[in-house]
C-alpha cells in the first residue's frame, strides 16, 4: 500500500479504499516489538472507533480501533505465527484485517497522509 493513498485516524490506524486496515508506522514504533496480535472474528459487524483488535508488545497491550463502520471480511492469519510483521511492514505484510466499508463517506472524512503527518507534528 502506498501510504499516500491511505486514510488515517487520530488513534493511529490506517484504512485503504478497499477496506484493508492496519496501524501506522508511528504506532508500531510507539508500541515497540509486537509479540501477539488478537484479531477480530470474520463476519463481525463493527461501528467506527470500536476496539476490534489487541496488539501486544512486551511493554503493554493496545486496543486497535476500527477507522470506519463495516463488516470484517478477512483477517491477516500470517500474524499469528509472525506478529513482528506489524513492525517490519505496517502498511504491507503487517495489515490486520479487511472490512466491507458500510459508508464510504466515513472513510473520506478521515485524515489524508499529509493531514496525518501534520497531526503527528502538532502532538
Amino acid at each position, binding site marked *: 500500500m502506498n501510504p499516500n493513498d491511505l486514510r488515517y485516524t487520530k488513534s493511529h490506524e490506517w484504512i485503504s479504499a478497499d477496506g484493508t486496515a492496519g496501524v501506522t508506522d508511528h504506532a508500531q514504533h510507539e508500541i515497540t*516489538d509486537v*509479540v*501477539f496480535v488478537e484479531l477480530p472474528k470474520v463476519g463481525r459487524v463493527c461501528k467506527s472507533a470500536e476496539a476490534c483488535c489487541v496488539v*501486544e*508488545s*512486551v*511493554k*503493554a*497491550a493496545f486496543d486497535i480501533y476500527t477507522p470506519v463502520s463495516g463488516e470484517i471480511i478477512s483477517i491477516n492469519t500470517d500474524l499469528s505465527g509472525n*506478529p*513482528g510483521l506489524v513492525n517490519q511492514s505496517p502498511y504491507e505484510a503487517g495489515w490486520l484485517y479487511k472490512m466491507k466499508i458500510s459508508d464510504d463517506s466515513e472513510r473520506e472524512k478521515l485524515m489524508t497522509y499529509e493531514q496525518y503527518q501534520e497531526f503527528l507534528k502538532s502532538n
Partner: protein
Amino acid sequence: MNMNSQEKIIEPLLFEKSVPDRAGIPLPASDVPVTLEESHFPASYQRKTPCEWPELSEPQVVRHFTRLSQLNYSIDTHFYPLGSCTMKHNPKVNERLVLLPDFVNLHPLRPHVLSQGILEILFQTEKWLCELCGMDAFTLQPSAGAQGELTGILVGRAYHESRGEKRPVVLIPDSAHGTNPASVAVAGLSVVTVKSTDQGHVDVEDLKAKLNKEVALIMMTVPSTLGLFEPRMAEIAKTVHEAGALVYMDGANLNALVGLVKPGDIGVDILHVNVHKTFSTPHGGGGPGAGPVGVKKHLEDFLPVPRVIKDKDVYRRSLNYPKSIGRVHGFQGNIGVLLRAYCYMRLQGLEGFREMSESAILSANYLRAKLKTLFPKMSKEYCMHEVVVSGEGAFGPGIRTLDVAKRLLDYGFYAPTIYFPLIVPEAMMIEPTENETKETLDSFCQAMEKIIEESKNEPDKLKSAPLTTPVRRLDEVKAARQLNLKYTVNSNL
C-alpha cells in the same frame, strides 16, 4: 535455567549435574516387584522409559539451591521501589508467630469448639479492617487482590439483581490496573472506560456523560495509579450514587490512606484490600496472597459464606446468609497470610498506621522533590505514596525508560515499575514505602542522577545494561514470541 546460551552458565541445572546411581542416602534394594500390575494401574498409563530424575549427592543439592538463593535479589538485601506492588518490609516477628505449632497444625475441618482461637483472630481481623476502612463488614476469603475484585463485583451485581435491576456495565478510569477490566469480564459484565484529565484525575464530565441506569458500579483506585489523591472523589461518589450505582474502590494503594482516610467516609461502598501491599504479608513468589473485601451495611448480606460470627461468647462459622454470593474459597481464606496481617495490625495500632501512611507519603514526596530537576515532565502536584515520572525529555537521544531501569540494577537497586500507568509516556512508578531511610532514598536519587548523565555521555552502557548482574539483559521479545517453558533432558536450550 540457562537463559542465554551465549553467556556463561552461572549455575547448571540439577539434571546437567546428574550422574547415574548417585544418591544422597543409600537406599536398600527394593523387596517388592517394581513392575506395576495391569490391575493396579492401566498399562496405557504406565511409563515405557524410566523417568530421568537427577541423581546427585546431598551436598550437591544443598549447594545448588544455596547458590541459587544467593543470586536472588530481594527486599532482605536491597531497596525494592517496585511501584504498584509494594515490596514493603515484612516484620520478621510475623514469621515467628505464624510458625507456632498451634497455628501450623490447625485443620480447617476441626469443629469450631476446638478452633476458638483462630476464629477469634479472623473475627478480630475483620473488625480491624472495618475500623481502618470505615466499612461495616468484611470477608477474608478472597485469595488475592484480583479475586477480591471479582468477589466485590459479584456482590455489587447480586445487590442490583436483588432490587430487580439489571445493570450490565462497569465504569473504569483509563488509569486503572489491568486487573479491573479483567475482573469485570470474568463477572460477566462489560467495561466502559472513563477518561482522565491532563493532570491524571478522573474526568468527571466524561464520567457524568457515561453514567446511566445500565451502570452497576464504578471502580476507583484511590489514590490513583499515578499516586494522586482524587480531589473530586466526594462529588464522584455522590453522582454515582444518585444514578443508583455503587462505588468500588481498588485498595491496591491503601498504603497511603490507612489511619488518615477511611474509604467508607468518602463514599466507597465496596473495597478490596491487598494485605500483602498494606499489611506487610510477604508476596512476590506468585502467592499465596489475600484480598479481603469490605462492604457497607446495605451489601453485607451478599458477602461470601461461611462467615465467622460471634454467638454470645462462642465463635463459629455460619452459612445462614441466603442472599450470599456463595463460597469464593474452599475454607476461610489463606489463613497464614491473614495471620500475618493480624500480627501487623496489632503491632502498628491505630497511631502506628497513621505514622506509617504519613511516612510513606513523605518518602515519595521526598523522592519527587529530589528528582524534579532530572525529569522535566514531572507533575506539579504533590503525590501520595508513589511518584510517577515520565522519561520524556529526561534522557540522552535514543535512550528509553527500559534502559534506565536496567541500568539501575547495576547500581544495586531493583527497577521500579515501568511503562505503567499507560497514560504516562515512558512512565516510571517509584514507590519507596515507609520502611526506607533517608540515606537509602538519597543514594537512589544519586544513582538516578548518574544514570541520566550516562544516558547523555555513555549511552552504550545503558543500551547493554545490566552489566553486573548474574544474568544480563534478557531478550524479552524473543521470550514472548517463542515461549518455551518445557525442559527436555539432554536438550541444548
